[in-house]
């Protein structure tokens, strides 16, 4: 009985990565060059064996193929993403989420790719609570960081919005608010600093467009 269980475990350990490998190769056939499909399938097999989602890898490869990115760059990007999925799972475990779903691991990896550290992601994951969706909130933080908001400020901004009890839609709108401030000439950090003041539309209260002198009181 004990032997049978061991054999079953071994078979499962081998079958899962092999299944992932063939499935990924089939899905990428015709969408990326064959060498990319082979390499991504191998990377995906390793990722699946560690219990991580392979869908983000497939999507990244498909994106690279659609954009006509050279094969070596697509493979490098997929390999880097696989490493970030590992790092993301570790950060989520450190935040007390031992069994995160695929979407959350993907969102966390995206946050890491846009400049947030594992510790910042961990802290943010701890701060997220109902009714906020953890994966979406981490993606918002990632986008803010990708826009140029310093990571530390990003975490403070998102945590502040969560603590203030703003709606999940308000959280989703944060990047567009920052973008609006940037369209008026503010830096990403300035635009993020101005959030929370509804009448400024992402601009800090003292902000003026470039080329316009500040008005001084007499």
């Amino acid at each position: 009985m004990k032997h049978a269980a061991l054999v079953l475990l071994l078979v499962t350990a081998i079958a899962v990565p092999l299944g992932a490998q063939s499935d990924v190769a089939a899905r990428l056939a015709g969408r990326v060059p064959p060498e990319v499909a082979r390499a991504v399938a191998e990377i995906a097999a390793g990722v699946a064996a560690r219990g991580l989602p392979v869908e983000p890898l497939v999507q990244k490869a498909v994106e690279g193929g659609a954009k006509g990115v050279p094969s070596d760059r697509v493979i490098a990007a997929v390999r880097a993403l696989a490493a970030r999925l590992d790092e993301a799972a570790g950060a989520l475990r450190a935040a007390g989420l031992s069994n995160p779903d695929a979407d959350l691991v993907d969102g966390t990896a995206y946050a890491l790719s846009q400049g947030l550290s594992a510790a910042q992601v961990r802290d943010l994951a701890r701060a997220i609570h109902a009714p906020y969706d953890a994966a979406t909130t981490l993606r918002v933080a990632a986008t803010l960081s990708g826009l140029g908001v310093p990571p530390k400020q990003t975490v403070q901004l998102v945590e502040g919005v969560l603590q203030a009890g703003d709606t999940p839609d308000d959280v989703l709108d944060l990047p567009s608010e920052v973008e609006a401030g940037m369209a008026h000439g503010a830096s990403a950090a300035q635009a993020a600093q101005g959030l929370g003041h509804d009448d400024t539309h992402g601009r800090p209260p003292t902000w003026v467009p470039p080329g316009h002198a500040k008005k001084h009181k007499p």
Partner: protein
Amino acid sequence: MSMSKTYHPLVKGLLDGERSLADLPPELRAEAEEAERLLGAVDRTPVSLSPALDARVMAAVRRRAASPVRRAWRRLVEPREFELRLRIRPWIAWGGALAVAAATALVVLGRPSVIPAGGPTPTRVAARDSIYVRFVLYAPGAKRVAVAGTFNQWDQNAAPLVPAGTSGIWTTTLALPVGQHQYAFVVDGQRWVADPGAPAVDDGFGRRNSVVAVTAHAGRAL
């Protein structure tokens, strides 16, 4: 040679009459003046129509409306809105839901699984509401424009934009699930262009992807 020109959001504001040239930062003024020159070239001379035109048009409309054959045909083929109200007892609703669930389970369990290892693929469309989002790109001279992104597997044939006359403005409206999506415009099947009016992030290949946030109450191309 294909050519595409997208204006800075502040310049677009000027064209929309939201601000004046003096409001723009100096570095945008040349671009604004060029945009105004282009618009100035449009012929805006008032068009005068013959006084008899109204009468001729209305006579034609009345002739068509009076035809009983046409009325019957329209009733058959024109789309209409129906409001369907049902009054059902709760036990019937629960019974129906259980039956549908059982049928779904039979169908799902009865066919080979295609779920990749490492967990099922998220299916947000089924789980959450979809919101209509309008995408707009100003690309004069383009022969073909499409939008591709995480919502359509980056397929540049899945969501073509339609030109608005000869204005150079291309648009399309897509139903997207609530959440955050990355995308880019594909001009003439070759050039991948980030949306100039939306936040953009590094795509991992040295380019930029635009980001759209679809909220439960409103969808918008940022």
